[in-house]
């Protein structure tokens, strides 16, 4: 039972991560290969606030979200200066630099990481695993609703205008700078939420938890699911969380299978499983 609850919590956290990256990459079209950095900033903020100030999860969570959003705005600034492939590499760079800061600066716990992060509790009662899973599920649903609202509101329209054609967007009165920064702020805020959940669930974090391979995994989730859609982000997060568990018997070949699947998807189904343009999705819609 505990095993399944833990998997459920991972699915929830990964779904929030996928939804958050989807705002930056899917809606606004800004390639980000360093999303684990924002996740890590959320986790470290929450962990340090909780352990150094001795406050509870309920205080550190909102603070972590705000801090991650602010840092996201600052780190999103390069997206105003550089475009496309430059941005892709810059975001890889941000991932490495943020990870190095966590690892080498003493304030962040250095190589030892941060331990003793309190598990959430209410009125002195420590959460059970089931309660944590329920809470994660609630936060996941809230994130999905937020992502959906962003997508269908004027913000979503602005972001998509920036994605499709920056020049056309700005000549029809869309403030491209504003929307790009907004995408990074919103995306980072949700990543901060996921990071905080992770930190208080694991109760111990190190810089290695937030490396470049994780950024790739998050990006793979939304691309495999179907970029730019809430349902795609969910499906991708679900598949990429469960797959390693299903492939456990393959143990030694697990990474290879994952890498080959990634290649095959890009080669034969680049629209993702249930993206708007995907053949699979069109068939499902056609029958319904």
């Amino acid at each position, binding site marked *: 039972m505990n095993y399944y609850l833990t998997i459920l919590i991972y699915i929830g956290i990964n779904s929030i991560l996928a939804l958050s990256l989807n705002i930056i990459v899917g809606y606004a079209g800004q390639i980000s290969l360093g999303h684990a950095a924002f996740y890590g900033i959320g986790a470290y903020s929450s962990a340090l606030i909780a352990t150094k100030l001795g406050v509870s999860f309920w205080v550190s969570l909102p603070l972590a979200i705000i801090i991650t959003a602010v840092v996201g705005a600052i780190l999103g600034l390069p997206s105003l200066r550089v475009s496309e492939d430059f941005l892709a590499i810059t975001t890889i760079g941000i991932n*490495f630099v943020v990870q190095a800061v966590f690892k080498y600066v003493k304030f962040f716990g250095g190589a030892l990481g941060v331990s003793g992060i309190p598990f959430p509790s209410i009125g002195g009662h420590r959460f059970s695993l089931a309660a944590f899973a329920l809470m994660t599920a609630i936060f996941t649903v809230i994130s999905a609703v937020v992502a959906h609202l962003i997508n269908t509101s004027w913000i979503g329209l602005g972001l998509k205008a920036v994605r499709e054609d920056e020049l056309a967007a700005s000549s029809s009165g869309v403030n491209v700078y504003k929307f790009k920064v907004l995408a990074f702020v919103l995306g980072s805020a949700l990543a901060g939420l996921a990071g905080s959940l992770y930190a208080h669930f694991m109760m111990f974090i190190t810089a290695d938890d937030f490396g470049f391979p994780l950024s790739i995994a998050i*990006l793979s989730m939304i691309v495999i699911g179907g970029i730019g859609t809430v349902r795609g982000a969910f499906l991708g997060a679900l598949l990429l969380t469960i797959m390693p568990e299903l492939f456990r018997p393959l143990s030694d070949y697990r990474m290879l299978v994952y890498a080959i699947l990634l290649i095959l998807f*890009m*080669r034969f189904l680049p629209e993702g499983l249930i993206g708007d343009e995907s053949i699979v999705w069109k068939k499902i819609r056609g029958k319904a």
Partner: protein
Amino acid sequence: MVLQQIINGLASGGIYTLVALGLTLVYGVLKILHIAHAGIYALGAYMALVAYKIYPNIYFAFLFAMATTAVAGYLVQKYLYWPIIDQPRIVPLIASIGLFLALEELYRLIWGPYVIPFPQKFHWKTYTLGNIRLPGADLFVFALSIVFLAILYWIVNKTKVGLAMRAVADDKEVSEASGINSKWTIALSFIIGSALAGAAGLMVGVYYNSIYPTMGDVPAYKSLAVIVVGGMGSIEGTVVAGFGLGLLEALLLGFLPFAFPRDALAFIAMIIFLLIKPEGLFGE
């Protein structure tokens, strides 16, 4: 002491430049971030191992490594990149990362996760010039990268093939209209770039006397930083940035009073540089 560090920096700068030049060539003609290039680089080192099994000779190893990586590069562009070239840019990018991961896993499964020493021991002499020590291995790597650079310079600037490569990089449609076979030109860029990476992989295998599955990781990230600073697709820019990074690392690591993450340094330099000059050294 400073000169010592400079020589060190020139050697590693030469390797960064060779790896990054392959990326630059590919980016020039195809506008793809070919992350898996660093997997090809590691392949060069492993193919040297295979070559030594067949015929233990360093020149043969070079030829064998460069030939096999050239073929690998050709296959990658033909069967992976070419079919998805018209997809959104994120698609070839992720495919490339997937290929890089797959290659590293294959090396691990075939040759094991451990560090393998280079099959031939080289007894490097250390030359002295006044009171500066010139390690033979550094000189070897530096000299060899200059030779490769010269060959590449000649191909790109003095031959018809090079002219076609520059034309396709400049404008694919127009160059096709003027009778250039862009498909073959792109393939050739991959072949040359991959052979360079293969040579670099072998050189690193010799220089550090170690070959291991993830040896491509650090060069992968660093060469990305190098091509960005160089201006994405500019060969001159890549050379300057590659050697610049090697020197910067050697000097900073030699003299900084505190422990510093060597691998993040390239990116810190890159980000600072981009804030000043977002189009890179020789970019438009």
